[in-house]
């Protein structure tokens, strides 16, 4: 049954897989390209670091996008068919979810491998000044962790019902209104800031996305 689920998911998402493979392979090469010229200049070290910093957000953004695209295509057909197909299968719900998740992860391996290969090629092609090093393995590993996390989050959201989505939106609305109320009463409490900090500062779930994504670093 897993083979069938994998095959159908491939049919639904094969174009997305091809596009994301190209994007993941190209990003490190694009990021490294301007350094070819600037590393020849006198201040090559600083120039390379600045170029890496400029492209840093793209890696996190691509990881987030990959997670979103693969998670939504994984559940897309089920949503369109009002989950009738899932109901007809003689397996418990959790087993069905595990198969869908595994199939999605398996397809996700293609762009992750492309990113790893792209990082290796880019590192070999770059002229790295003394004192700096390339981190193709660390960067591609971080990219893989971030992508799988994003995929899992969007997968869980997509697996939920409309009622769950309504609950989540209600909670967000209550928090927003609560912050407005706190401000109206002149209390010095930033609830939204605290929530955002909790999300992006270790051990928050999105901590892996924060900071710089440097293929070439000290």
């Amino acid at each position, binding site marked *: 049954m897993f083979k069938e689920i994998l095959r159908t998911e491939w049919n639904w998402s094969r174009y997305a897989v091809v596009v994301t493979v190209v994007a993941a392979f190209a990003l490190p090469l694009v990021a490294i390209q301007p350094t070819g010229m600037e590393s020849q200049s006198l201040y090559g070290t600083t120039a390379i670091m600045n170029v890496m910093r400029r492209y840093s957000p793209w890696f996190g953004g691509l990881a987030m996008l990959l997670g979103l695209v693969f998670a939504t295509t994984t559940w897309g057909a089920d949503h369109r068919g009002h989950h009738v197909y899932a109901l007809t299968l003689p397996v418990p*719900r*959790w087993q069905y979810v595990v198969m869908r998740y595994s199939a999605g992860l398996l397809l996700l391996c293609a762009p992750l491998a492309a990113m790893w290969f792209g990082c290796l090629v880019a590192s070999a092609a770059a002229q790295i000044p003394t*004192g700096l090093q390339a981190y193709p393995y*660390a960067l591609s590993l971080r990219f893989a962790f971030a992508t799988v996390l994003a995929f899992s989050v969007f997968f*869980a959201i997509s*697996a939920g*019902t409309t009622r769950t989505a309504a609950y989540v939106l209600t909670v967000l609305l209550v928090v927003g209104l609560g912050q407005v109320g706190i401000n109206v009463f002149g209390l010095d409490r930033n609830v939204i800031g605290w929530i955002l900090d909790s999300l992006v500062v*270790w051990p928050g*779930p999105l901590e892996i996305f924060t900071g710089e994504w440097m293929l070439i670093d*000290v």
Partner: protein
Amino acid sequence: MCRHLLVLCLCTGALGWAAPAWAQTVEELEARVADARISLAVAEAAEDSARGRLDSTRIGTLRLLGRPELLSRNEPAAERAWASLRRALGPDTTIVSGLIIYLYEDPNRSTFSGAAGTVRLGDSGPSSMFPGGAEHVQPLRLRRTYSVSAVANSIERVVYDHVFYRVMPESVREWLDAPTSFDTVSRGEWTGSYIALTTSDLNIGHQCFQRNIAACTKALWLTVSETPNVDWFTTAEAQALAQNSMAFTAMQCAGDVTQCPEFLRTTLPRPPLDYNTRQRLFRLALEVGGEGAIHRFLLAPDRIEARLEAASGTDLGSLVEEWTTRVRNAPPPGSGFSTRSGTVTVIWILVVFGAALRSSRWR
């Protein structure tokens, strides 16, 4: 609120009074505003004193002034600060005796009157108290939420900024470039120097990273030279520097390399490594030298290398070599990804996947 308005008015008044006669630069204006703020705190102390609400205490040669309850609450912090200062100072602790630290919290007062009126702006600035051994009152604002270690650190910082840095000769102050603590350099700070060396724009920085002690000695500005820029910059680097300058000598240098030494001679010193890197060498010298290192540093002949040798008890070459070893032993983690980060991500993936498993097929 009123107090904030008062501070604003005083600062504005100080600026208006000082600007035409004295202030030539933004730095001077800022210094005068800082003096005005200090004067305000001193005036508050005077008012407290006039109303009999002020007490003083002495821990070693460290003198504190403030309301009795504030002094008693912060006594453990002051003792901790004194113990740390005592370790750094060694036998001569009298250097601190000219300083009185006035501890205060935001008084939330609505008026500003009484003895405060006798204090004129600018009279009590820290520069007027040194040299000559006169007493200098330095205010230190505390908050009720400060921990013991935070208060101790603040007290130490006041002493470092307003005693040691001020009594040091001009040459040392120029070399340090800013007040520094005497604490042992942390790994994170060594990592900062590692990054400074490896990303240096000048070749001398990279040579220093490769354990070239002569290059390090130059890069750390330890050699006395009338034209330090000539020691630091190669001709090509000087030409690159000249590209960003409109000075006549710069344009000459950009067009003709033989003119670059003249350009470097006429340009203000541009050390290849920032002051933090030099301060870490200074703190390493204190660490290696142990007790009394500061005392020896101050008594040594007025050359920075002689002072560092005296403080550390070793020759300069060994000290710089130790410095490079410490720097090289503290590389940054690289690429911003750590095992800790990976572990937490795996845990969150499992949590989120667990939530997905609990979803219902019933819509």
